């Protein structure tokens, strides 16, 4: 092999190598882009999740407020019913209670 042919060969190889390295860089860029896209997608997944959590939070709050409101209405109704019953009982037993205290004061009864 002559020097000329060797030079020619090396030159050709160099050219091809340069072209291939260029291709390799493109591939690396493409790979990085893929990873970046994946990271963006991952970020979107997390953002969506945070959004879903916020939506769920509002829903849980709404349901909880309804439950509390209903329970308070129920308690109020029960209390009102009890108060009415107490009032009624007190009305019908009022005289008995007064007479009992009077008898106690005048020594006609003991506790």
């Amino acid at each position, binding site marked *: 092999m002559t020097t000329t042919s060797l030079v020619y060969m090396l030159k050709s190889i160099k050219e091809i190598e340069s072209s291939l390295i260029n291709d*390799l860089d493109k591939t690396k860029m493409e*790979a990085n882009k893929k990873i970046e896209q*994946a990271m963006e997608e991952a970020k979107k997944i*997390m953002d969506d999740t945070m959004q*879903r959590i916020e939506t769920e939070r509002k829903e849980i709050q709404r349901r*909880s407020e309804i439950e*509390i409101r209903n329970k308070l209405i129920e308690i109020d109704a029960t209390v009102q019913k009890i108060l009415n019953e107490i009032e009624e009982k007190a009305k019908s037993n009022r005289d008995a209670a*007064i007479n009992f205290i009077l008898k106690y*004061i005048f020594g006609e009864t003991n506790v």
Partner: protein
Amino acid sequence: MFKDMSESRIRKICSYIQEELNKQRHKIMLDAEEKAQKIISEAITNAKSLYLEKVNEIKGEFDKIKNKSIAEAEFNAKQKILKQKNDLICSIFNDVLNKLKQYMTTDAYVKFLEKSLIEVALSIRSGEVEILLCDSDTMTSESMIKSIEEKVNHKLNANISFRISQERIKATGGFIARYANGKISYDYTFETILDKIKEPLRPVVSKILFG
């Protein structure tokens, strides 16, 4: 011929480099693909667990608020019922005080005087007791008191002298007995009696009223 040989070698070398490079490119893409998949799959897993954790946390937080609100409402409800009962019991005692006015001119009041003066006598046994009547008392007389005195002394074998004071007290009914120049006094006014019996009688009155 020589050139052909060279070209053939170059092609071979290039082909080899190309092949190696392709392998490398393929591997780079495969690694990137794998890494991308891993990133996404980790994000999905993290998102799922974050979602569950946060939702449970939120549920717990609102459960606490709910339980606290309900507990407060129940406590307030109980207080309201207790207050209502208490108000009704107080109103009964007020009614009793009004009713007691009507007893001022009855035999029951005389019995009350006698019973109360016996209690006083049991405490002191002998000496002079000054009786302060209330300003509305128009029935109790000196002679009535003297009659009670006689009964008490006889019953208790005591030596007590009851005397109605000129001083009158402001009360619905009853009296105040003073002994030892006013150093000891026994308050039998209706107001004080009611005040004293209010607490001990409350459970019984409550039972009678509310069943």
